[in-house]
């Protein structure tokens, strides 16, 4: 009798210690800064990002701003992708955000800050509307819905009078009090602030119930539903978040470019976003940032390369646009076939060589 009791006690104790162990692991897993190297890496990145305008040219700051804007949009796409849903129409949401900002600022002379909020909110609402078919459709069909949404929106924007048709709209620069934010570095810091906000939100979201529900839906919808996760609610939420991200980035893009036309938001833009996601490695925040940097800087890098080689191969200058398109296609195909994990996958593989065996 006593031995039985002792055994029971022992068993419960060992279970308890196991439990606390698991909890500790979970806590560690939940932390944003997991180790000292992580902290050092983050501080280094922060320093580089903050000090960039001090030692680079205006052109580089402009490119960096575009990278930051794309980071916001692609993080939204990443959130949507973490529920297993795919969208080839992310550029359309960006277009909505950009055009609402442009119309409010240009035609109705509203302050940018209000226009930014309104644009983000309206894009979110439209995202919910697009989410309704998403509750019935999967993979290929969903891709087609979002794709056709992008095609339709492009034609509508090009055809309407209020959007300026193919000529586009001028967007006035934002102002704080009497200061007009019209230099590159001011816009860079503004965008950087927005990126910090959105990244903070994304990283925190990845530790919550919501992100776990997203993952459960991605892995298997029916078992997720059986666990009491509302498919309707979470899929709509994913679309809402993705379109809010896209709307905010579109709004920022409008003021950074200063002049937007429908050709900034074609189907190619949406495919570029997917490329950023795939090249970076879907599902990982750091990977997505890397992928966005690579793909956004690619055309500028190619342009630089062409100019450097133009005296030896003058044909490169003539065929620049075509070659660029081809390189994009080749990158998309190569990454899909050979590196499905994207850049993050390559890094993981690479770091695996240096790790001791478990």
């Amino acid at each position: 009798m006593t031995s039985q009791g002792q055994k029971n006690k022992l068993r419960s104790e060992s279970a308890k210690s196991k439990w606390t162990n698991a909890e500790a692991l979970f806590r560690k897993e939940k932390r944003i800064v997991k180790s000292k190297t992580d902290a050092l890496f983050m501080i280094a990145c922060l320093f580089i990002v903050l000090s960039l305008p001090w030692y680079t040219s205006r052109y580089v700051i402009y490119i960096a701003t575009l990278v930051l804007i794309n980071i916001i949009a692609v993080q939204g796409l990443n959130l949507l992708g973490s529920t297993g849903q795919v969208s080839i129409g992310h550029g359309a949401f960006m277009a909505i955000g950009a055009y609402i900002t442009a119309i409010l600022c240009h035609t109705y002379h509203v302050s940018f800050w209000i226009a930014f909020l309104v644009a983000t909110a309206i894009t979110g609402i439209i995202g919910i509307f697009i989410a309704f078919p998403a509750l019935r459709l999967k993979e290929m069909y969903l891709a087609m819905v979002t794709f056709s949404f992008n095609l339709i929106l492009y034609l509508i924007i090009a055809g309407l009078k209020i959007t300026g048709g193919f000529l586009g709209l001028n967007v006035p620069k934002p102002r704080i009090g009497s200061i007009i934010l019209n230099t590159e570095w001011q816009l860079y810091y503004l965008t950087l602030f927005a990126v910090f906000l959105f990244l903070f939100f994304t990283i925190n979201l990845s530790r919550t119930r919501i992100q776990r529900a997203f993952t459960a839906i991605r892995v298997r919808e029916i078992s997720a539903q059986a666990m009491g996760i509302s498919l309707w609610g979470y899929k709509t939420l994913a679309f809402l978040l993705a379109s809010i991200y896209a709307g905010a980035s579109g709004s920022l893009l409008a003021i950074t470019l200063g002049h937007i036309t429908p050709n900034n938001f074609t189907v190619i833009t949406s495919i570029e976003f997917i490329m950023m996601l795939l090249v970076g490695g879907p599902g990982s925040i750091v990977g997505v940032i890397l992928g966005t940097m690579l793909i956004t800087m690619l055309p500028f890098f190619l342009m630089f390369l062409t100019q450097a080689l133009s005296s030896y191969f003058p044909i490169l200058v003539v065929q620049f646009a075509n070659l660029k398109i081809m390189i994009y296609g080749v990158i998309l195909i190569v990454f899909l076939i050979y590196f499905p994990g994207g850049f993050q996958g390559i890094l993981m593989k690479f770091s695996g060589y240096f790790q001791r065996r478990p």
Partner: protein
Amino acid sequence: VEIMMEEIKFFIDVCINSLPIGSVYCLLALGFVLILKATRMLNLCQGEMMMLGAYITYGFMQMKWPFAVAILASIVLNAAVAFVVEKFILRKVIDKPPFVLLLVTVGIGTVIVGLTGILWGVEQKIMEIPNFSKTVNLLGFRMTYGKVSIILLSLVFIIILGLFFKLSRRGMAMRATASNWSASMLMGVNIGNVFSASWILASILAVFPGIFLAKSIILEPGISVYGYVGLSALVLGGMDSILGTIVGGFAIGIVEGIAAIYIGGQAKHLAGFIVLFLVLMVRPTGLFGTKKVERV
């Protein structure tokens, strides 16, 4: 009553005039269906294949080849391109999820666009085809030879393909592959050959609408957008039905014609995509598609 008769006659005229473009969509949708049935992938580069076929024909015509020979040569070349693309790129990812396959075809499409741009330039070209704009009287409607031939071609292709799938042994092998890969492999079907055959057939089907569009509208890389309208014909007809492609293609053509006449402006281009969007929202299986049941 007189006015109403006039209206109705006008409406019928509009419908008849939009039959040629409808048959273009029909042929494109047929290409989509062939590939979709055999390999379960949505081939988003059908429009680009179409454009490539038109450009190759144009290239041979520039070299003073006769029109018929140029078409034959472009069919052969297009089929070769499709064969290479399928065999060496898509065969590697055939077991991945459909979305990955779709993106790979998008990538192939952009490569084709870049390639045609390098070979022929991006500026608009005009194709000269003998006897294309000669008119004939058919049951009281005046039509050009080009329009009549594209309508006839689409009907002929659909009948031939329908008979091929119903009657011939290879057609049966393709149907078997469509319904179950592993079972048909066990029954001795070489499914690799079936994949190649479906791609080659689809690329051949893409040549004719390409030439028609290049002649009747303009030859430029932008005509690959019509591939997406073909996509909406596919979805309207049902994703896996050959009968559906006829109905879907002609229906989209007529809808576009009506939108162009009665609304005007950009509405013509919008109509096809709005139909695509609405059909996917309301009835994703289309008119003749089979419904899929999902199990846990």
